[in-house]
């Protein structure tokens, strides 16, 4: 525990110092990056060690003479800690060059300060072991991330994003607090202890409340509205951390509550799974419709949270129906996907950050052909895309494979769980296909083809500190994808912390599965090598010439003729138009020789639309009705006093 606290302390210290020395910009940046990465490294080693040979650790501090702030690290916490520290480490290194052309040392200092607070509070959230410590660190996390979202507050868009995020996170926290309040109300203690004598209806209520609360942080479908606004607004290394790990704390919260409740009912499973399916499919559909690369990635976070929830839902169903194998497969898959998603999503955000940093635009249809200039960025981005599509031999496939196995194993269990697993499997398949479509769009339009605007022409990549993390993360994608054994073991350690009273989970079947994955991946590599060999043989001493693309007989092709992202996704969006109404805007072409016209399309997020109509408007209406109260007439004011007394006298 000591090592953990010292690492968080180092991180905070780094942030504080960079704020102190903010005037000397360079110096403060160096200090910040050094301290942050050092602290993260320390914490990472600690957490990994705790995972590989499981050993719980806890600490508790007296607080205000009346309460305790207690922290505890078990398998689950350690797993999330690993993800948090790993990604934060990479982001910290990445930020060194990313922040270079920021004006104003103060702003940089502030950014690093809140960045460090964010990392530390995330680490504390996943280790908190009672209500007080959890809520304090939770709110600190929300607060620091809010400041990072409105970091560049000059644009109205970002301000809106910040406001949305602020409100959502606070309301979510209130829901969480309500759930904790119910827990305290029945146990009378602040500690996270398994709840024995609590009526089951209350347990379900607690789960639902906390699911809404944590879901609003994780970006589960109806509560994800803030997410696609906030993540693009933040600087890219922050987006990487937020989208990579911060939203996962919501998942952690759900798991932790599930563990505390210690109540295995399929209802939890159904709720989680259905929420997962909806967020998964809609998330990727909306992502397909985006024109802003960071918004697109943000929506993919919604999708991946959906996949994670599907896994957890399967696990809960398995646990409830007494199928250890299903339960463990589902949970392990979901939890492993947490790690995987944090790896490839932060990688993708870093790539997007590099593109933004070098071209100055986030609009997909303004880019093109970057792969020629940005070899490393492009390659790592493509690897990330393959991973997020869940394709072998990359890490996304491993977790999805586990979830698939779990869902299939859940088929014979019972009629409802049959429907559920069919639901899960089909939606996973559809999600996979859509994700593939979406990322072929991104890769194809952003990195391939010809540059569509001036901004994208002859772009180079530079900044070693930005490329190294991307390389490491890409390597991680491949390693986890090919040799998942050790990571699966980590996930299993985490699963044991859920207290599914199966005792020690039998590792053999999982060892077998991971073995198969490794084998298949290697086999595929071998085949690829062979085919490459054949190809090279046939190309030996052959003449390959370069020329323009075959324009199918058209002789003056221009870059404007390229297929745009919007048109690429158009037909698919049409198919989903019920869930994703597409609003287009283009003036009709007039005259025989039309000169100039434009086309603009926007995919409406139905959750966002309905949030306005269902929540905001009624509230305003209700409170407007009450506004006459303050009418300024003193006679009636005195009347209120009299009224209050008269009414109260009735109750004596």
């Amino acid at each position: 525990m000591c090592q953990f606290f010292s690492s968080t302390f180092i991180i905070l210290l780094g942030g504080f110092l960079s704020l102190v020395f903010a005037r000397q910009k360079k110096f403060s940046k160096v200090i910040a990056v050094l301290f942050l990465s050092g602290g993260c490294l320390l914490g990472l080693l600690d957490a990994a060690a705790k995972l590989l040979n499981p050993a719980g650790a806890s600490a508790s501090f007296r607080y205000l003479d009346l309460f305790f702030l207690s922290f505890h690290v078990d398998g689950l916490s350690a797993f999330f800690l690993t993800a948090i520290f790993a990604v934060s480490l990479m982001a910290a290194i990445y930020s060194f060059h990313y922040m270079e052309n920021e004006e104003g040392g103060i702003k940089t200092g502030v950014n690093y300060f809140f960045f460090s607070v964010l990392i530390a509070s995330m680490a504390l959230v996943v280790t908190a072991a009672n209500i007080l410590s959890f809520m304090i660190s939770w709110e600190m996390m929300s607060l620091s991330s809010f400041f990072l979202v409105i970091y560049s507050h000059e644009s109205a868009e970002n301000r809106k994003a910040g406001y949305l995020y602020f409100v959502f996170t606070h309301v979510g926290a209130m829901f969480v607090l309500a759930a904790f309040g119910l827990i305290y109300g029945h146990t009378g203690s602040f500690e996270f202890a398994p709840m024995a004598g609590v009526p089951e209806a209350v347990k379900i209520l607690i789960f639902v409340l906390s699911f809404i609360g944590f879901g609003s942080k994780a970006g589960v479908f109806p509560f994800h509205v803030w997410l696609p606004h906030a993540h693009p607004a933040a600087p890219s290394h922050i987006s990487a951390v937020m989208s990579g790990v911060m939203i996962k704390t919501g998942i952690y919260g759900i798991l932790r509550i599930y563990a505390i409740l210690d109540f295995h009912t399929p209802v939890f499973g159904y709720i989680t799974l259905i929420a997962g399916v909806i967020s998964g499919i809609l998330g990727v559909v909306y992502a397909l419709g985006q024109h802003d690369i960071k918004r697109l990635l943000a929506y993919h976070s919604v999708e991946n949270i959906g996949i994670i929830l599907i896994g957890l839902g399967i696990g809960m169903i398995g646990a409830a129906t007494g199928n250890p194998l299903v339960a463990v497969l589902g949970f392990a898959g979901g939890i492993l996907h947490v790690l995987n998603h944090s790896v490839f999503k932060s990688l993708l955000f870093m790539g997007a950050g590099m593109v933004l940093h070098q071209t100055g635009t986030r609009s997909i249809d303004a880019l093109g052909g970057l792969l020629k200039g940005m070899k490393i960025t492009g390659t790592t981005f493509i690897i990330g895309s393959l991973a997020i599509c869940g394709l072998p031999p990359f890490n996304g496939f491993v977790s999805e494979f586990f979830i698939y196995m779990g869902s299939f194993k859940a088929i014979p269990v019972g009629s409802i769980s049959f429907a559920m697993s069919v639901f899960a499997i089909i939606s996973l398949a559809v999600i996979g296909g859509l994700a593939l479509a979406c990322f072929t769009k991104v890769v194809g339009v952003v990195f391939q083809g010809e540059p569509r605007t001036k901004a994208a022409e002859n772009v180079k990549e530079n900044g070693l500190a930005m490329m190294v993390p991307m390389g490491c993360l890409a390597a991680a994608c491949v390693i986890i994808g090919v040799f998942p054994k050790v990571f699966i073991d980590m996930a299993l350690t985490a699963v044991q912390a859920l207290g599914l009273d199966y005792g020690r989970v039998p590792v053999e079947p999982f060892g077998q599965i991971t073995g198969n994955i490794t084998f298949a991946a290697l086999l595929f590599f071998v085949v690829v090598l062979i085919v490459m060999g054949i190809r090279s043989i046939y190309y030996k001493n052959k003449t390959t010439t370069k020329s323009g693309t075959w324009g199918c007989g058209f002789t003056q092709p221009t870059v404007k003729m390229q297929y745009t992202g919007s048109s690429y996704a158009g037909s698919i969006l049409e198919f989903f138009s019920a869930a994703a109404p597409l609003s287009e805007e283009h003036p009709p072409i007039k005259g025989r020789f039309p000169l100039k016209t434009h086309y603009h399309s926007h995919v409406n997020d139905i959750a966002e639309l309905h949030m306005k109509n269902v929540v905001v408007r009624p509230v305003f209406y209700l409170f407007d009705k009450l506004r006459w109260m303050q009418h300024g007439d003193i006679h009636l004011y005195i009347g209120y006093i009299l009224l209050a007394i008269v009414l109260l006298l009735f109750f004596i």
Partner: protein
Amino acid sequence: MMFNPVDIILSFVLLSVLFSFGTDRVLILIKLLGFQGVVISIIPFFIGHDMSTGGTVFTLATLVIRGFIIPLSIFVAIRKGAIRRVVEPIVGYHASILCGLAVIIGATYISGRLDFGSVSGFKLLEPTAIALLVTGMFLLMARRNAIAMVIGYIMMENGIYLVGSGLSVGTRHIVEFGILLDVLAGVMIMAVILRNIKQTFDDVDTALLRTLKD
């Protein structure tokens, strides 16, 4: 006992209450105020408190303040800025008089219900007190003229004082004197405000004071 001076003067007070409902003149209200002040402050002489020298002195002081200083201060305020001396009613005069009757009956009824009677031997004491309270409230809520409202406030205070002395709450005179001083200071300040209002709006119609709202 046959001849009970307290109840007789209290009945006069009740009459004055009725008057204050009906009148449209600020000056009359002020006079009524003075009368009520005098009456209620001599009540303690009749209720069997220990009339030590301190008590006597204090009671006289009360009489002076309630009966003369307070009404005079308001009168002065009016004089200073010759304020139109009609109370603009929100509730009409006839209606007000009916309200007054209703108030008196109600007060008697209520005081019958809650038996203060056991404390002091006078039947009219509590009805009068309650009547004064409610009248004050009424004037505060039903008169647009700022002065009338201040007068209403003072009547309310008188009522409370009457209740206090009626219930013979064994407080020290010094404390009661403090209360009295507070009331006096309050009235003074209100008078000052009245003058300021008069100077800025050259009217004391509270309809002008409705700008601050949401």
